[in-house]
């Protein structure tokens, strides 16, 4: 009798505590497609579905779309500590920070210093940089009288950057790498002729 009396409150507590659903477990594990698969009638189904969409957009580096989907998730009025809400907020923060950087890096850059194997040489010109609206890291670089005075480049190139704002492009012999750092763009040609580095500085907008 005494044992039953002791067990009764525990049984009551167990009965009152809702069993953590399979869906919630999958949302916590970030296995969102599985959550969608099993959550046809579940309250968390819209959240899981939107998370799949959000992660697809993040994987494709479509950061503007990421922000829109994150806003849709926010409108679901999930609990502040809901795993989907937390993950969506973290992704949105990353996207916002990156888009701010993209905005800062867009503009016109002018050669400030150029070296060939650490010895200065007479490099010149400008590069106009703009990033794609849809694919955040795809940039169009428009070369304007850029390079060596006897072989100036006046063309356009579409380059896919990495999220750390660096890119490598293969050449017929060697490769060229690009890297944005604060308000500078560093272009490095590596090939049979040695390592040629152009350090470009971003010009103020009105120039």
């Amino acid at each position: 009798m005494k044992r039953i009396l002791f067990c009764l409150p525990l049984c009551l507590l167990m009965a009152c505590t809702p069993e953590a659903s399979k869906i919630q477990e999958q949302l916590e594990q970030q296995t969102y497609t599985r959550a969608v698969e099993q959550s046809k009638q579940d309250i968390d189904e819209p959240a899981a579905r939107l998370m799949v969409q959000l992660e697809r957009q993040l994987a494709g580096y479509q950061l503007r779309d990421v922000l829109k989907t994150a806003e849709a998730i926010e409108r679901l009025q999930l609990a502040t500590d809901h795993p989907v809400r937390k993950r969506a907020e973290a992704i949105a923060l990353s996207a916002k920070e990156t888009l701010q950087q993209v905005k800062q890096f867009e503009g016109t850059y002018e050669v400030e210093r150029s070296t060939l194997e650490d010895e200065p040489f007479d490099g010149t010109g400008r590069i106009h940089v703009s990033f794609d609206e849809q694919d955040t890291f795809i940039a169009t670089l428009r070369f304007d009288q850029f390079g060596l005075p006897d072989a100036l480049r006046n063309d356009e190139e579409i380059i896919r950057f990495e999220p750390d704002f660096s890119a490598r492009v293969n050449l017929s012999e060697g490769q060229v790498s690009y890297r944005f750092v604060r308000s500078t763009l560093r272009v490095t040609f590596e090939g049979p002729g040695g390592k040629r580095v152009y350090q470009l500085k971003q010009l103020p907008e009105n120039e």
Partner: protein
Amino acid sequence: MERCSLCGTPLRQNDTTCSHCQHPVIKKEQLADPPAPSSSRTWLISTFLFLLLVGGAGFLWYSLKDPVSPEAGQTPSVEALTLSEWSDEQTAYNQTYSKDRPPTSYDVLRFVRQYTRTIPELATYSKEYDSIETFSAIQFTTLNVFESEFKHLERLTDAVDAPVAPSVLAVTFQKFTSKGATYRLRTQETYQIATAKGTMPVTYRVHYRLKVHTDHLQIIDVNRTEVSS
């Protein structure tokens, strides 16, 4: 009646020693109030525990039922993801999984994104000079997928001898589902190839099927269609 603790002889009320063995009598301290019967004490503890747990359960039920936590309005601090969490800094091919630790949705997407980067290299495979075993040792696709890919990447394989090798330009992930342990993913992939007139994009619509093979992700089926160039 009290008895001698040594020999058991009955004692009178004021005895200081035992009348039989002379063993000194040690008087027991009398409690001011007799102890409550043990059953009453059990009831008291049970009732207290019951009320405590009912209260706790009620609070728990209320906080789980309400979509907004009691600290509504106070947004818990969420930090942005680190770059390695969403970029290709981590190599997806090295990741291992188990039934208890399945790949996250993003793990699957990142795996395919990194796979697309190997496509230009895959296009360089030469039946004449390369050994298929070398490629089959790479476990991120099955041998059938590798052979199927090689057959459908004709535009890229034709361009591998160009001065500049093909490269991946953009990948969009269009539909992503799972059924049991199998993942299905539809992508649109654009690669750049060099031509005499400059670079030219080649776009494919691709359907992938993936699953965890032993402990790592593997592409088990690919359906690649060129949509534009």
